[in-house]
């Protein structure tokens, strides 16, 4: 029982096919409460597909997703957002006809069901936490870093229990990445469990408690980064057969 309570989200033999192509096969992962879990793997390994299936963008072909002890495999994406699973996107997806603040408000309005004034308050708080300013700016005027932060803020405004960050550090500078890592640690400090997909190994090494390595849609290795990074199978997957 104790073991169970410690795990907020797990998958059982999770598979996802696209028109016969296998994107995920029999993936079993566990996300513990308050943990930062890294998901790494070469391009096309199925990392983003995993997040898409976990957040309900499309249902699994086989297998189950257990969240807080309940099977949520059949729940649509908007319900999963309401019960506490939030995400950002690999390629940023700002809502271009809304301002920065309004973008962040959407999560509070619909996932939390707040009224407009409440949502403005909530969104301003979250933006303040993320260090965002000039909240009435249209998103077309934002820098790459600001858009990334806005995506995190939009996810946080849903009051998530789990936050999934898909390549947050892509396209921002090394200093900016440091700032972002501080923020992620602060978010974890609030008791939110975090799942990061990342290519920048420096970030994975510094940030995560544990990593899972995916390759060709299956779990290749699992454990602390220091351990996994010396695993010969992982090295081979990253460098390829011909290396």
């Amino acid at each position, binding site marked *: 029982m104790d073991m169970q309570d410690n795990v907020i989200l797990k998958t059982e033999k999770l598979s996802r096919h696209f028109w016969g192509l296998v994107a995920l096969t029999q993936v079993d992962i566990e996300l513990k409460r308050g943990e930062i879990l890294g998901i790494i793997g070469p391009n096309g390994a199925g990392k983003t597909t995993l997040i898409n299936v976990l*957040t*309900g*963008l499309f249902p699994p072909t086989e297998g189950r997703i257990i969240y807080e002890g309940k099977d949520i495999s059949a729940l*649509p*994406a*908007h*319900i999963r*957002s*309401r019960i506490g699973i*939030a*995400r950002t*996107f690999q390629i940023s*997806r700002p*809502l*271009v*006809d*809304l301002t920065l603040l*309004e973008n962040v*408000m*959407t*999560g509070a*309005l*619909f*996932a*939390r069901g707040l*009224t*407009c004034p409440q*949502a403005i308050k909530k969104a301003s708080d979250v933006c303040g936490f993320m260090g965002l300013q000039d909240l009435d700016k249209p998103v077309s005027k934002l820098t790459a870093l600001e858009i990334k932060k806005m995506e995190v803020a*939009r*996810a946080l405004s*849903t009051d998530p229990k789990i936050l999934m960050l898909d390549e947050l550090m892509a396209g921002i500078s090394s200093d900016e990445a440091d700032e972002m890592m501080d923020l992620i640690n602060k978010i974890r400090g609030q008791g939110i469990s975090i799942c990061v997909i990342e290519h920048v190994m420096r970030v994975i090494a510094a940030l995560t408690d544990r990593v899972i390595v995916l390759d060709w849609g299956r779990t290749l290795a699992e454990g602390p980064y220091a351990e996994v990074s010396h695993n010969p199978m992982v090295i081979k997957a990253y460098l390829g057969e011909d290396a």
Partner: protein
Amino acid sequence: MKIWKAFVIAALFLAAASLPFYTGTYLLHTIYIIMMYMSLAISWDMLLRAGQLSFGIAGLFGIGGYAATMLQVFTNINPLICILFGAIMAGLISLLIGLATLRLRGIYFAIITLAMAEIFRVIIRNLPDTWTGGAMGIVLNNAIFNGDVKQTYWLVFGILLITIVLSEVFNKSRIHFAITSIRNDEIVAMSSGIDIFKWLVVIFVITSTLQGLVGAAYTEIYGSVNPDANFSVHYSLLPLAMALLGGIRSTWGPVIGAIVLGLAGEYLKLLMPYGYLIIYGLIIILVILFLPDGIMGLIKKLTQKK
């Protein structure tokens, strides 16, 4: 600034409401026809703000008209109740169509709405003549308010006000955030907890009810319905061209477009008794190619540059 705006709106409202006291019958008639198209244009735009394109205004307009007229014939109750009934029927039918089709959106929805007017016309033609009057339609004994143009004007003005208020609610409340998210990025909308299907059905029903309302009022004003006139492509086409020309995704764009095209249309009809619809087709093409934000967008651009 805000006080100024409120003042202007109040002045406009008073001017429009008091119009019948100092305007002749012909002008009043022209204005309320334009106001009907204005309501249709705004309601069409309201759905467009959620990213859904409807070609089906004429279908809902016709359904509203038929439902109102049939209730009138069968029960002979107050025409205002019949108008309300027409609106509700259009809403109910759009609910069914929305539930069936809005999970698959975009082109599928657009084509369904494109076929709608024709389908309703076929159904009306094939129902027993004793219900619908068949191909000849139904002529009522009496137009609403016995044809009094002032009261008719106020009725249409009232419908326009309802439409404008709803449209502003769409732009200023949480609905605005839901539909803008859906239009901009459905995946983000879902991830923010927005039930896209539910919102789209609700918005389709609201805008269809408005279109049914206008159609029902129209038949009560003219005292007749028939399948060809009430499902005519005019009622899809004109509002669409008006909203596009004025500037989409706002309340005032369609208003401006309706005034410009409504007045121009009066002259067009005199110049080209038939075939004048070609102008509306050309306007649609030209706006899409060269003026995507319409007159409103042009004004904004010009004022911002200065």
